[in-house]
């Protein structure tokens, strides 16, 4: 069981900054995210795109913002459960919470802060009639263990970076790799596109474009796919695995069943005070919450995280006196023993 003071669900910018504000109050944080890396949308959807409304940054790339936040919070040593989705929550008799992920990892925390953005990112499934029958029987939407494909016949579909990169990677493992895309053009990093071209010329990858997988064949498990390709009759390719890589789309998911008040696909919070939900001890901050006048901006998430941490502190230590300290005055004491502080002025007389 992982134990922490504040369990943050969602490792996007708002969730990451929460670690900093909590750290100033000597509260420890642990983050859960369905994606395999921190940064949320900023690293998953648009890492190379600039953001212009982060105060004091006239321009910053979304990926760099994530890196800077990770740097800013590192002395508070946050824990991460990545690649897992928060599934259930149980309130304990002592008002603490146990949150369990889809992989069974349990987290025990005094406070839960949902910073889930638009929800957890789930793979977009192509519209093939019987595809759900083959899930984990030859159809995988995410590659978890490349060894699964050793000496197997693999068909990948999609036209972006992940389709290109996995096609390249799997040529060294699988016995056959076929890449199918609806267009002749691929949208990916230049060197990935070139590498695929090279592997195609060497006969290590079969490219079928413009084409589309229309149906799946097999009884117990996948044995082949039916391909539709311009200028040909539909044909069958033998396949042990079909990996559709059409990107991810966010879904609010299991959080919607936690008994929280939901409005417009977002969690209603008390914005007059501390962004607490209808369940005391559970807060919602950033894009995942809603209140009158809500704006889904990263900078608003930072503000919400800051107020939320003050409230969390009072909930954990109801009788402790505390006033907010400026970091310039108080410095930053990390849980790793480091200390950042303003340099002392020199007091010296001038002759």
């Amino acid at each position, binding site marked *: 069981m992982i134990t922490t003071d504040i369990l943050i669900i969602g490792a996007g910018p708002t969730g990451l900054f929460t670690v900093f504000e909590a750290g100033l109050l000597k509260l420890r944080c642990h983050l859960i995210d369905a994606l395999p890396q921190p940064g949320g949308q900023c690293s998953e959807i*648009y890492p190379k795109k600039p953001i212009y409304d982060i105060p004091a940054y006239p321009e910053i790339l979304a990926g760099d913002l994530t890196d800077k936040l990770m740097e800013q919070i590192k002395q508070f040593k946050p824990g991460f459960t990545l690649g897992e989705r928060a599934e259930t929550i149980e309130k304990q008799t002592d008002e603490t919470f146990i949150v369990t992920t889809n992989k069974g990892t349990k987290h025990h925390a005094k406070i839960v802060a949902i910073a889930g953005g638009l929800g957890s990112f789930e793979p977009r499934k192509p*519209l093939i009639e019987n595809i759900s029958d083959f899930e984990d029987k030859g159809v995988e939407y995410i590659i978890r263990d490349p060894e699964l494909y050793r000496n197997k016949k693999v068909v990948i579909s999609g036209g972006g970076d992940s389709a290109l990169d996995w096609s390249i990677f799997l040529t060294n493992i699988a016995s056959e790799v076929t890449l199918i895309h609806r267009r002749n*053009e691929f*949208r990916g990093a230049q060197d990935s596109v070139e590498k695929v071209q090279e592997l195609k010329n060497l006969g290590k990858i079969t490219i079928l474009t413009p084409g589309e997988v229309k149906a799946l064949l097999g009884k117990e498990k996948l044995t082949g796919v039916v391909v539709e390709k311009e200028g040909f009759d539909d044909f069958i390719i033998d396949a042990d695995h079909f990996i559709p890589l*059409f*990107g991810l789309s966010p879904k*609010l998911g299991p959080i919607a069943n936690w008994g929280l008040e939901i409005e*417009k*696909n977002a969690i209603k919070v008390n914005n007059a005070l501390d962004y607490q939900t209808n369940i005391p001890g559970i807060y919602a901050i950033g894009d995942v919450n809603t209140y009158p006048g809500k704006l889904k901006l990263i900078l608003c998430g930072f503000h919400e995280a800051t107020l939320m941490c003050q409230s969390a502190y009072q909930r954990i230590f109801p009788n402790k006196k505390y006033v907010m300290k400026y970091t310039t005055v108080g410095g930053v004491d990390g849980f790793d023993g480091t200390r950042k502080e303003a340099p002392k002025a020199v007091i010296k007389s001038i002759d």
Partner: protein
Amino acid sequence: MQDIQLKIIDRNGVTHEVIAPTDMAMNLMEVVRSYELAEEGTIGICGGMAMCASCQCYVNSDHELPEMSDDEDAMLAEAFYVKENSRLGCQIQMTPELHGLEVELAPES
């Protein structure tokens, strides 16, 4: 600058006649959101960067539309429910020439 009229069929098949300003740098996806014609969180997920296809729509009138960028074209190549007249709403800016535009929102995917 003037306001224009649009006809938008939502995902439930209901037709809405709406008025859109042409002087607010708004695109079609934003017009749909401003009138709440699709559930919040199911449209404009990437914010309008042609990176998610959640604002895909079918253009039913024969207005001349801005040319498709490579990004939009590539995104539609990976989207589902794509038809000949598919466009991403976030790439269609509201201009006086689009008065009378008729579109239908593509299903959520």
